């Protein structure tokens, strides 16, 4: 019987850093093709519609960008935590808390001039999202409580918390029963770029990417984060304060997610409402991982997944559920994970009995 064995490569294969992610997207689309076909749905037509929905017109492209902006920010925030092997999967809740805090400022101090109001909203959102990340971060840092579960649980808490306001005290009397806050004053609107819906949140995301790149590659702190990511124990041994770094990274990771929340309410919805995020916090996990936590790659991958989201919304008009997109997202991640072994190993035929 012919058997195969994984043999460790001498050095990591650099080509596969690029090939594996691209191939995983292709394979996921192929999987989707077969799945749709088995289900009796015309795959070519479906993909064509998704493509047109995402790139078919200048409006489509601007929508793709609009959806990509929160993914960029969330992906960047998550990448910091992931680098330290902190599994923050609470970006969704951190986004909601940021949106909540920014909305509070906009609703109660809406008559301030934009130049004051917007930064204050951003700061409030960063703090609120940051606290939502810091709490599970502190539990992890001081008591070693599993942060995967706590961050995820806090998603549900945050969403319920926000709903308690938009169904309750912050409900717009003119909303005819819909769970919406009143519309913000125009000073609280994030300026848009040209006459599209794309807003300057895009620039914020790009700025964060540059900052993060610089921080990770050219500062002592960035180096510490990398060392901690390799091994908490050896980081402690070399005198790095792991506890402090966990707190800081969870604060910033949550804070950036909070900022994404502010950017959504201030740039797009102009009010706090239910479902401000179609699961951005989870999609961003895939974005960060697919980009191998590289800040600039995150920007590009986020654009791609923005397109997938917009294309997916387009499918709903034709009766296909939005969950089709989630399924494809999950498949991308499967193929990516499956392919990652080839960056570190290669397959070798072994005649003798293997494992």
């Amino acid at each position: 019987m012919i058997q195969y064995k994984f043999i460790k490569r001498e050095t990591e294969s650099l080509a596969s850093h690029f090939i594996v992610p691209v191939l995983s997207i292709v394979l996921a689309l192929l999987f989707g093709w077969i799945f749709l076909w088995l289900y009796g749905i015309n795959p070519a037509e479906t993909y064509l519609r998704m493509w047109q929905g995402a790139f078919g017109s200048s409006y489509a492209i601007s929508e793709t960008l609009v959806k990509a902006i929160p993914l960029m920010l969330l992906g960047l925030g998550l990448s910091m935590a992931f680098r330290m092997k902190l599994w923050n999967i609470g970006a969704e809740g951190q986004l909601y808390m940021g949106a909540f805090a920014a909305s509070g400022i906009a609703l109660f101090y809406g008559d301030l001039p934009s130049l004051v109001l917007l930064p204050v909203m951003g700061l409030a959102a960063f703090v609120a999202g940051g606290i939502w990340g810091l709490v599970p971060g502190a539990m992890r840092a001081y008591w070693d409580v599993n942060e995967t579960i706590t961050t995820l649980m806090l998603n549900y808490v945050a969403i319920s918390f926000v709903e308690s306001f938009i169904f309750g005290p912050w409900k717009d009397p003119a909303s005819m029963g819909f769970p919406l806050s009143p519309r913000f004053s125009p000073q609280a609107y994030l300026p848009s770029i040209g006459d599209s819906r794309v807003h300057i949140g895009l620039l914020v995301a790009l700025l964060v990417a540059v900052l993060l790149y610089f921080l990770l590659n050219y500062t002592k702190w960035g180096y510490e984060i990398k060392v901690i990511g390799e091994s908490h124990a050896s980081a402690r041994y070399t005198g790095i304060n792991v506890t402090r770094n966990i707190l800081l990274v969870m604060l910033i990771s949550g804070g950036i997610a909070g900022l994404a929340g502010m950017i959504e309410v201030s740039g797009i919805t102009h009010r706090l409402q239910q479902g401000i995020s179609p699961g951005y916090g989870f999609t961003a996990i895939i974005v960060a991982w697919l980009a191998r936590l590289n800040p600039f790659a995150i920007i590009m991958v986020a654009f791609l997944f923005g397109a997938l989201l917009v294309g997916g919304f387009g499918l709903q008009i034709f009766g296909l559920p939005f969950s089709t997109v989630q399924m494809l997202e999950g498949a991308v991640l499967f193929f990516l994970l499956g392919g990652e072994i080839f960056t570190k190993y290669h397959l070798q035929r072994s005649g003798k009995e293997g494992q």
Partner: protein
Amino acid sequence: MSFEAIVALLAATVVAGTAILYAASGELLAERSGIMNLGVEGMMLVGAVLGFIFTVRTGNHWYGMAAAMAGGGGMAAIHAFLTITLRSNQVVCGLALTIFGTGLSGFLGKSYQGTPISDPFRAIHIPGLADIPVLGRIFFQQDALVYLSIVIAVLMWLVLYHSRWGLSIRSVGQNPAAADAVGISVSRVRYFCTIVGGILAGMGGAYLSLAYAPSWQENMTSGRGWIAVALVIFALWNPMRAILGSYLFGGVEALTFRMQTAGVNISTFYLAMMPYLLTILVLVIVTIRMRSEAGAPAALTLPYHREER
């Protein structure tokens, strides 16, 4: 609250805890062998939707249950292949499973939302035992799946602690190199435990759609899969404690539901947060009391390959 109401509440507690008990038992088994599977939520959803669809189509809830088991087991097999054979990161792979399962279940269940079901699981009064005062109401007037869940958890405890099989499973999770040295196939044990774990998660999901709710709604597990993962830590990887923990969460769910219908003057939104806050609280208490992860299988989340040990 009258005595009668308390008994009714406790009976509802058992029902509400059952889905979590299935899922937690499954995750516990997988983790005992060293595989953490954070895809429980996704596997439960796939189980719930397949169980529902097959019950609607065939009119027999046992066919539905079989489909749910196949679905949960199939999903877990993906996890097993990626993490055991291809040595992927278990955390990320579990997340992928949850995202994929959420999408897949939403897709498959789209046209079944709001469909009535002709053959849900119904309560079976166990002759004799059902007539015991109080306890009979709580434990012996339930549906078949409640009984089965307890049997499975107890059986798992027996196997894990009092059989050679259990010893193999625990040693694979504790020290795979040593297990390998005495001739146990590490990957075979891990595949087995992960897939059985998925089958149980699928059953937990089907319990929701075939007995608890009986209906299908997108995302109907609403975090129960994650609660089950937390519960395994709470249970210190012991199935008997998992029974206790599941009913604790079932109790909170049943209680908040009662409070909502009784019109207690607490916002429903705050009541809805309770299970999640409780999960965090329980996790913190257990972790602090146990000082780090005592009781956790030592090789949890670590891939094993012979030539690199």
